[in-house]
Each structure stands twice: as C-alpha cells, then as structure tokens.
C-alpha cells in the first residue's frame, strides 16, 4: 500500500502547486460569475428577455439614456449615448444630440445617428423584436445629421425616455454588424457597452472582454466569464472554492443566512422586487362572483407568507403595482386577513361547505412553496385548491390558454405603473386575444384610466389616473398581490462595483468600467 500513499501525496503536491500558481497573481482582473441556467438563449437584446440573457446584455449595451448605475428610479435618468435632449411643448417630438466618438465593438466603426435610427426601427419591428409593441406610438425616427436623432411620436408618450434606456428594445445595436450578420447576430451581438462579446462555449459559459475603446474609459476588469451552473449546490460550492466571484442567489432566507456566514461573502439584495400576484379570472365561475374572489383575498395571510419566505428577502405587497414604481399607490382597498369574513362571504355566495378550485401551477420551487402556503391558508376558509403542478414551460403555455382560473405570476417590469397595468390589466393584453400579453384576470375596468395616463403630460394628473386604475382593479379583486421578492445575488468582498447597488433593471448586478477587484 505504501506506493499508493506516496502516489497520493505526489498527486496532491501537483494539484496544490497548480492551485497556488493560480492564486499567486496580484490583482484579479477576471470576474467569474455563476448563473443559474443551463445555457444561453438567443443573445439578441431585441429578442430575448429571459433573466440569464438580460444580465449579460446589461454589460454589453448602451441606450440613449440610462439609470444612474446601481439605481432604477425612472425620474432620475442620465445621458448615455445621447449627451443631451430636448422635446417640443406637446411632447410629440424629441431631439437627441449624440456623443461623438463612440465606437462599436469589434471595430464596427463609430456609432452615429444612423445606428440609432436602425436600432429603434429594429426594436419596433415585430419580425425582429419581441418588444415591438413598446414602440407602437413611434411615428418616425430620423437622423437629422451625423450626431442628431429626431423621434416623432403619433401621440405623446410620457415615459418615452424609459424606452430608450439600455433595456429590451432600448438597447442600441450597431447597424453595420446587425445587417451584416442577420440571423447570426445573436451569436456575436455587437453594441457599444463596456464589455464586448468574446467567446461562447455551449452549455458552459459566455466570455465578455473589456471594450478598450469604451467611451467612458477602458474597464478595469479584463474579462467577465459568465458560467452557466444549473445546480444550486454546485454553484454555491464553486463560490466557496473560489472558482466564481459572484453568483446568482436563491430567494431563500436559509441561503442568505448561510452565504453571509461564509468568509468574504457579501449578499446583494436589490430592486426590482418581483411581485407575486394571484390573478383571478373574473369571467369563469365560481370566480365570476366577486364574493368568492373577496373570500379568497380575505383568507390569505400575507404576513405569514413573508415570515415563511424570510424577512431579508421578502416584503408584503401593497398594491397590484410593485412598490417603488412610478405611480404606485398604497391607497387601495387591499383586503386584510380575516378568516371569518372569508367564510361569511363564501356562505353568502352559496358555498356554505366551501368549494374546490382546480388550478395549474409551475414546479419552480420558489413559486411553488409560496403557493403551498396559500393552499393551506385557503383550506382554513374551506377553499380547496386542487393544484396540478406541471413543468415550467407547460405552465407558461397552459396559463396562456386560460386553463387555470387562478394564475400565480411573479414579475418585475420597467418601474412605471403603466407597464404593469397595461400588461396585466388592460383588455388588449387579455390572454387568447391577438394582442395578448399577460392579462389573466380578463379585467378591463381600468382601460380608460390606463390609456388616458399614457398620453397625460401633467405628471400629477397622470399619477392620479394610475391611482384610480389601481383602486378600481383592486376593488374588483382582479388580482391579489401577495409579496415582493427583490433580486438576490452574492459577491466576494474583494469585488468593488464602484457604486452602491440598490437596483438593476436587468436583474443582474451592474458591472461597468469602474468595477474592479481590490486584491
């Protein structure tokens, strides 16, 4: 056996020395990120809006304007590719002056007004973009000169600047590259951001490299290796072993507590909060009876859900629009937990012995655990949720076919009340219709207010309209907002973002030219 022992020692030495070599370097310039996904999707910012892809886009693209890094307050936008902008009195024409000398990745030349015109046209074209409906009020986008872009609108869009941030259709792609590559653009997306596309390894990683010509200066990090690590356990272990420096966390209090105890680990909890809401189909019996909907709302105990999910990463919802969104109000009829009332309402509605509702739910653990609590709470009121748990893609397909009278949906959107109200409560968005998005409740009671708010140029009046919309929809119990969960990530304390991370609309931490390692 002696030779075995000797061999083992020798092997150990070899491995130890290779490890030591890796760690001996001075200051780290490669950021290894662990993402909970099996692979990249189509890496085209105008097509994909999946969480793993969006985080990458955030590091590669610019918009005309942007949030201050690390924040997401729509009232405080700052210049990005545009240096300045003006709008006409009626808000129907906007003129943007571009920065000079911005370079497209991989030597695709200087970014000019032509690129902006092309990019916005692309984002507004349903054949090439998933976000075309955001741009439906755009009449004309034209290049006045090399560095001036003019956007003419059919009617005023109060949150226009919000469409021009580096997010979804606002991400600016370079014309020459997109035209040259066509369908293959998604395999090598070209933008102007601090990091450019390096390499893609299937089922393994995407590597971004520093854009040396970045207009805000060369990034301090040389590389970002974005690794797809599906298994939660291995992602955590890879962080412990030092192979990754930043990771997508779990929206789970136990996870937060455990990672916090790890040496040199910092847990990041930042906005946007994903609002979990139960959407009740008001057209289907028994939910077409408002008393049944109210009974369900009264039977749910938000505080218990928050307690179960963990206080660091959960907050009770206050309205059908997430907290912090422009136009959100908590002055709404939010029904408190009251079991007696729930039972009384059910009796009044003709269900003295309770009732059973068959619903479809995803098998995603985070969403399922909350639904199981709700299931238990409803049972106390005599409402039996007969839950059919299906795999996530099946769930998405089936809820869009109206197969579940109660839909549990968790989402974060651009932080303006309009996006949430339009996508979830406008009659245009009702599932099954040609313009469907995610209106599962079939409510259309606030169409007038939502539409009026879209063209209202007076901010105070606009907020009032959004408030009325929320009040109407809440009074009808179209949706029962339960709780909000912000984004949860963790990073090594030697990584300095360069700003305070409070929010990131791309759902991944903001990494830009100032982000660096301190050791």
């Amino acid at each position: 056996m002696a030779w075995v022992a000797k061999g083992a020692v020798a092997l150990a030495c070899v491995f130890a020395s290779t490890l030591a070599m890796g760690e001996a370097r001075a200051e780290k310039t490669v950021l290894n990120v662990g993402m909970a996904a099996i692979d990249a999707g189509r890496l085209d910012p105008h097509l994909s809006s999946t969480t793993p892809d969006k985080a990458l886009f955030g590091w590669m693209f610019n918009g005309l304007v942007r949030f201050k890094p690390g924040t997401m307050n729509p009232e405080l936008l700052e210049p990005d590719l545009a240096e300045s902008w003006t709008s006409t009195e009626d808000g129907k024409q906007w003129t943007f002056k571009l920065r000079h000398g911005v370079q497209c990745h991989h030597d695709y030349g200087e970014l000019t007004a032509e690129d902006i015109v092309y990019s916005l046209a692309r984002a507004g074209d349903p054949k090439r973009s998933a976000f075309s409906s955001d741009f439906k009020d755009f009449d004309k986008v034209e290049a006045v000169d090399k560095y001036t872009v003019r956007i003419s609108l059919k009617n005023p869009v109060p949150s226009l600047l919000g469409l021009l941030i580096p997010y979804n259709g606002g991400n600016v792609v370079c014309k020459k590259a997109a035209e040259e590559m066509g369908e293959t653009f998604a395999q090598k997306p070209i933008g102007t951001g601090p990091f450019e596309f390096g390499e893609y390894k299937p089922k393994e990683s995407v590597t971004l490299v520093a854009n040396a010509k970045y207009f805000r200066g060369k990034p301090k990090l040389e590389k970002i290796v974005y690794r797809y690590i599906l298994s939660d356990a291995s992602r955590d272990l890879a962080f412990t072993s030092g192979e990754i420096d930043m990771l997508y966390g779990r929206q789970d209090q136990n996870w937060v507590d455990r990672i916090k105890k790890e040496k040199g680990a910092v847990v990041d909890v930042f906005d946007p909060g994903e609002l979990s809401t139960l959407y009740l189909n008001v057209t289907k019996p028994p939910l077409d009876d408002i008393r049944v909907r109210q009974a369900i709302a009264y039977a749910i105990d938000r505080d218990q859900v928050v307690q179960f999910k963990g206080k660091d990463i959960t907050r009770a919802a206050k309205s059908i629009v997430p907290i912090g969104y422009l136009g959100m109000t908590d002055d709404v009829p939010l029904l408190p937990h009251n079991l007696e009332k729930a039972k009384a309402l059910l009796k009044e509605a003709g269900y003295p012995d309770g009732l059973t509702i068959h619903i479809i739910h995803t098998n995603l653990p985070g969403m399922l655990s909350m639904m199981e609590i709700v299931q238990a709470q409803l049972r106390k009121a005599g409402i039996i949720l007969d839950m059919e748990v299906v795999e996530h893609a099946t769930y998405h397909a089936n809820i869009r076919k109206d197969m579940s009278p109660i839909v549990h949906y968790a989402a974060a959107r651009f932080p303006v009340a309009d996006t949430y109200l339009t996508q979830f409560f406008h009659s245009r968005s009702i599932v099954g219709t040609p313009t469907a998005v995610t209106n599962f409740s079939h409510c259309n009671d606030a169409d007038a207010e939502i539409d009026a708010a879209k063209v209202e140029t007076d901010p105070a009046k606009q907020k009032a309209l959004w408030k009325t919309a929320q009040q109407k929809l809440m009074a009808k119990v179209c949706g029962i907002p339960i709780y909000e969960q912000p984004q949860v990530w963790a990073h090594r304390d030697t990584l300095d973002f360069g700003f305070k991370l409070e929010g990131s609309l791309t759902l991944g931490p903001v990494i830009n030219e100032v982000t660096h390692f301190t050791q």
Partner: protein
Amino acid sequence: MLGYVVKRLLLAVPTLFAVLTIVFVLARVLPGDPAQTILGDQATQEALENMRHRLGVDKPIAAQYAEFLVDAVRGKWGTSLVTGKPVVDEVRNVLPYTIELTVTAIIVGALIGVPLGTWSAIYRNRWIDYLARMGSLLGLSFPAFVSAILLLLAFAIELRWFPVISAGGLDDPVERLRNLALPAINLGIIMAAYVTRVTRSSMLEVLGEDYIRTARAKGVPRRAIVWRHALRNALIPVVTVVGLYLGILIGNSVLTEIVFNRPGLGKLMVSALNQRDYTVLQGMMVVYAFVIVIVNLLTDLTYGFIDPRVKRQ
C-alpha cells in the same frame, strides 16, 4: 463477418426511424412553446407568432414531419430553435466530453469491478465477499447526485485537489484530467458496483464447472485457474452488462454533468427538453439510438473475441 456487421447496421434503420417518429410526435404533443422560451414572458402575441413562423413550428405537425423526414434522409438536421446554431455543431461540440467521461467511467468500473467480483467469488461468504457485496449494494443504491456532492465536498472543497466546475477546455492535458477525475470516479463507482455483482455471480457459476475441478486435479496453479481459465469464461455476462450499461450510462451522465458542470449530451438533452428545442432533441435521439445500436453490435462482436466458440457459430 463484414456481411454480419452490414446486416446489423441495416436492421438499425427501422429502429432509428421508429425512435425518431416517437420523439417527433411526443415533443410536439407536450404543451410548451419554443418561441416563448426564446422571447421570454414579456413578448407580445404578435412577436410570438412571428417567431413561431420563423422557426417553422406554426405549420401542421404532418407537414413538419414530412419536411423533417426529407431533411433527415438528406442528412440535414437543421438548426437549434433556441440558439440558431446547426444541430450537428451543437452535438459535436459536447460529444467529446461525453465520450471521454463514459469511456473513463467504464474503465474505472471494470478495473475496480472485475477483480473485486472475482475475489468475492473465490472467497465466497468470507469477509472480503461480504465487504464487496455491501460495497456494491451501496454503489447501486446511492443516487448519483448525492455521491457527486460528497465527492465535491471532500476533494474540491476540503482537499482542494480538483475544481468544482469541471468544464475547462480540452487542450491542456493536465487540466483535462483534473476536470475529468471526479465525474469519472462518480460514474465509475456506479459502474463498478454493477460489474462486481455480475462478475461475482458469473464466476461462482464457472468455478463450479467440471473443467475447473479437472484443472485443479491436474495440479494447475490456483492463480492460473482463476485468472486464465475461469475468468475468461465468466466474462461474457460481464461484457453484456457493460454493453447494456453503456447506453444507460450516457443517460445517467445527466446528473453527473449537471452537478459537476460539464458540458455533454445529457445536459444538452435536458436543456433541449426544457426549452422545447425540437430540432436539437431530434438530432440527439438519432445519436443516442445510433450509439445503442453500435454498442450492442460491438458487444456481440466482443463475445467472439472472448470465447472463440461464439465466433464459429
């Protein structure tokens, strides 16, 4: 010999056809939508329909099937619905990782399993036998992902000999071995458990044969009896198991690949299934079915090599 091989390969064609048809229909009967996976949940109906049209999944299933068969015969496997890359490339990219892992696991399994099973049979009902049997039972009943996490905790976190992310490139041989070690051991242990059990029972049978007694009576050294005469005769069931298991192993590697973060066929299949990437799924099924056919053929050919009597028949 050649005629036999060709005949076997031709017989595989209807099998492949059947597998493909089943996969084709099953994948499309499942609810779920590749367009939705690509565009995410904020996409409008219009964008989704455009994407479906672009992907060609809006046509009737019969039309899609006809198109698919024509392309398949012409050797065109199309492009991945999700990534837009050719399916052939998607499979070829990860195939080396899977082959490397499976072959190593089988070697590890055989190197541990055959001697252990043999000793176990020789020392029947003695402590070494009990130990081997208990070990193999443990190996069989241990879920692959649990043993994987345990291996990671011991060798990647505590001892730090191996990396947690066993992905790495295939260029650097040292790095490649380091990346391969833990996943191969993990799969190899399960393999070894199977091999031990089969070797043991097969050896027990052979050791009771008349010719073994004759050899012993003739005074042939015990070592030669066991390792030359008995083992060779006992190996046929072992080879069968290894052959059959190779197919299962490729499937079992899914969990190992996910926990150790290795690219590979298993992971490719899971992602194709989750994302409803029909074309990749179809391409992979062809590879799988083909591998099983080839392995079965090789297994049969190995019989003749181990036992010349089989060849004569």
